[in-house]
């Protein structure tokens, strides 16, 4: 961008290079949703850690789950003339005006982990994210294979109306539509929390008992709660009841190693390196695709033990 073009930045190829102290530091504004889950905190930590490593001056703003506060943060980043903005949007809609301001000020905006719906996609530079629908599909496909496409499934949804909840359900149901013997018997919101996941699972157990063959949770926290509920009811999660979830946080690996969780689809929060690499590419004037997929993969009990050591979150 123009205000810093006279002071050329050291092109940093990877995570090793740091900007020389004499140069003007790169200033990046990062607007985060909040700290509602372990996954989210890991994402924040990753970006903050990477910034520190590279000597980037990171302005962090926690929106506490409110879009209005994110917009407020963005307008003030723009007013402070940062070099780039990283935005993890609370919701998909409603970004036109403020992104237009950023564009007018010539500040590149990198979206992370969730897209936005805008009338003109030149308003943001690129999106680095996982595909929630794909995660749902992966979970369902794995479950189909595991159960020979025959299962009574109980679903623990994320927060009602939230994008991951809607998309992970959507992707999952897409695959189910092709497998008539797999059906979701009951589906309730567990608000993405362990406590609610446990409570809802307890209710399922009391009403349907032995009928429960598989549990699909929209995140690991709820799955862990459900596992606890199953155990307390004297059932055997991981064996009598197949449990699969999304996120792949460390605790999920522990549960897999213990044989209680069957599989988890990764939704990788460690975006730091990729984000700053992308910013560097932008500043070098590279043309970027609109979507950079953050690679997701599915982990099951078999490979859990190997991976667990490398998990930081």
């Amino acid at each position, binding site marked *: 961008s123009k205000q810093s073009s006279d002071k050329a930045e050291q092109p940093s190829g990877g995570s090793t290079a740091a900007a020389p102290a004499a140069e003007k530091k790169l200033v990046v504004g990062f607007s985060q949703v909040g*700290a509602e889950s372990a996954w989210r905190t890991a994402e924040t930590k990753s970006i903050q850690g990477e910034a520190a490593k590279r000597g980037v001056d990171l302005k962090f703003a926690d929106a506490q*789950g409110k879009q209005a506060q994110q*917009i407020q943060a963005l307008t003030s980043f723009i007013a402070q003339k940062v070099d780039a903005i990283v935005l993890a949007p609370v919701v998909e809609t409603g970004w036109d005006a403020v992104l237009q301001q950023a564009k007018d000020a010539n500040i590149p905006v990198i979206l992370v982990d969730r897209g936005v719906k805008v009338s003109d996609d030149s308003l943001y530079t690129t999106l680095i994210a996982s595909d929630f629908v794909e995660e749902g599909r992966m979970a369902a496909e794995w479950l189909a294979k595991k159960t020979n496409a025959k299962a009574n499934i109980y679903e623990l949804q994320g927060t009602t*109306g939230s994008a991951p909840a809607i998309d992970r359900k959507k992707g999952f149901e897409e695959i189910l539509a092709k497998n008539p013997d797999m059906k979701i018997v009951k589906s309730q919101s567990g608000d993405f929390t362990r406590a609610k996941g446990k409570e809802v699972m307890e209710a399922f157990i009391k009403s349907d008992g032995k009928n429960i063959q598989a549990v699909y949770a929209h995140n690991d926290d709820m799955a862990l709660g459900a596992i606890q509920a199953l155990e307390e009811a004297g059932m055997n999660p991981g064996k009598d009841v197949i449990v699969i979830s999304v996120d792949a946080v460390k605790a999920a690996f522990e549960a897999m190693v213990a044989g209680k969780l069957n599989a988890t689809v990764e939704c990788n929060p460690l975006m730091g390196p990729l984000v700053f690499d992308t910013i560097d590419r932008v500043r070098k004037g590279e043309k970027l695709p609109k979507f950079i997929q953050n690679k997701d993969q599915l982990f099951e009990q078999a490979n859990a033990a190997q991976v667990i050591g490398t998990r930081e979150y």
Partner: protein
Amino acid sequence: MNFLRKHITVMAGVVAYLLLYAIAAARYDGFASLPVFINFLSNNAVLGIVAVGMTFVILSGGIDLSVGAVMSFSSVLIGVLIMDHHWSVFAAIGAAVACGSLLGAIMGAVIHRTGIKPFIVTLAGMFFVRGLAFIIHLESIAISDKAHTAIAITRVGPLPITALLLLGFVAAGWFVAVFTPFGRNVYALGGSEEASLLMGLPVQSTKIAVYALSGFCASFAGAALTFYLSSGSHLEGVGMELDAIATVVIGGTLLAGGVGSVFGTLIGVLMLGLILTSITTYEGMTSSGMTRVAIGALLLMFVLLQKVLMRRFVGVGRAT
């Protein structure tokens, strides 16, 4: 002096606000500029408009927990009407505001007819309206409509449309509170419902009207939200009721009813804006936890400062 005495809470609020503003301006570069100040207005316009309605409810001795839900509901409804049913912007807003006012009026009528506490009725209202909003449309909905966008980017002088709406609501609210019989009846109702009844004031209609007014403001805030975000959103209203109540009370309105002012509420809005902006964006806190602690601490500082100023200037009265 007499003027100062009469409006002591608001004046103390203004002084405390100016003090904190001065501190922030000294601390952060570029804080003391018109655009930043205008941002306070436009960024908090939605909350502010809701709070104006809430001011009347609290003045009347009631409370309305449904405002956040009504606000979200209205924004989603506007989105659905414009995007899925191709209504014109004004028709959509009109319909949403009519629905919001009606919901408010129903809650008011239930409160009056059954004698159930406003807290419960409006809490139930909150659940109900939120459920309703999900039923209309599960996800938040983006609005891309020429006329809508045209309004959204309208500016009058330096003021964006949302800021303008906020100022308009505050001015209108102030006028209604001070110069109309309805406004005075609201104060009387909050001062003593029993006495209002014995004095022959229209208690029933005032009560219903107060909640309808709150619904009106909340649903209009929903419209303002669509201008601000170009979308109808389920999430923005969550927890807003407490913010709105806090705004009103910080502005010097007594939760017990009968005492307070709409202008005070504007101070409350500006104050919250100042705190949030300075902490979440200028201070550059690195942890969410510290951000919350700082917000709380600043809020407390403001309220304490307000109290100290009041004691300084008037001394404490007979009442404890």
